[in-house]
């Protein structure tokens, strides 16, 4: 089976590949969004704890 034949999908190529493409996109967003969100949360919390650590000795003295 040639690549062209495979891509044309017996004439249904547009339908098959567009639906697979949309699915890939949606799944990709579903992976990347939570990963980015976790990174952002971790960074924000780290920053917060850092400033807390810096401020604590100040307030004591």
């Amino acid at each position, binding site marked *: 089976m040639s690549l062209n034949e495979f891509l044309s999908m*017996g004439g249904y190529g547009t339908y098959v590949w567009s639906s697979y493409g949309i699915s890939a996109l949606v799944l990709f967003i*579903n992976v990347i969004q939570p990963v980015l969100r976790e990174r952002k949360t971790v960074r924000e919390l780290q920053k917060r704890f850092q400033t807390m650590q810096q401020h604590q000795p100040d307030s004591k003295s």
Partner: protein
Amino acid sequence: MKLPRWIHQFGSPKYFYELSLWLSRWVAIVCVICFVCGLYGGLVLAPADYQQGDSFRIMYIHVPSAWMSLFIYMVMAVAGGIGLIWRIKLAEIVARSSAPIGASFTFLALVTGAIWGKPMWGTWWVWDARLTSELILLFLYLGYIALQSAFEDRRVAARAGAILALVGIVNIPIIHYSVEWWSTLHQGPTITKMDKPSIHLSMLIPLLFMVLAFKTFFISTLLIRARSEILEYECNASWVKQLLGSNNVTK
């Protein structure tokens, strides 16, 4: 009713946070393997259908996402119910994090159904029973997500959402039957049935792989979503301070 202790242990955010990274990675590996097997089997190995030609290959994403859309709603309702009754934070988090994944699978099932319908029925949209109930399911998901974002307090939002999901789960069978009944009376175009009574094994095995792939995909992304939710829920807890604070010191 009292729950056995190990459930509470597993439900403790700290324990779950440590376990989930390891778990999500392994599940993701299984997911990728299943995707590769399913896609190769479905797109290359499976022979073209004698009626629908190659367009039936859309089935390999349409059917699993349609199944997942219902399954995730059930997970959401059950987890919400557990959170409501036993006040387990983790169950609330699972319910909340499931909603966007479920909504995107429902969206996928709708879009691929419409794309599949174009060569089969000649139009993008037919008021077919399954597509219609899938559309209503999408509305239910979007309503849940809208309700979640309307509250400021996460815990109140989770409990309110749980009630909505439980009401939805009672409604889903009713919606399903009503729509089925309605569409058999209104049937306009002659529909070539999407599901065959018997499906050839070389077509079935890739489908099973795809179903497994979608399921593991859900579990894996759910775990990642839950991790960031836990951090946001527990941002004042001592274990989060220890975990993220000490990281900084060592750097």
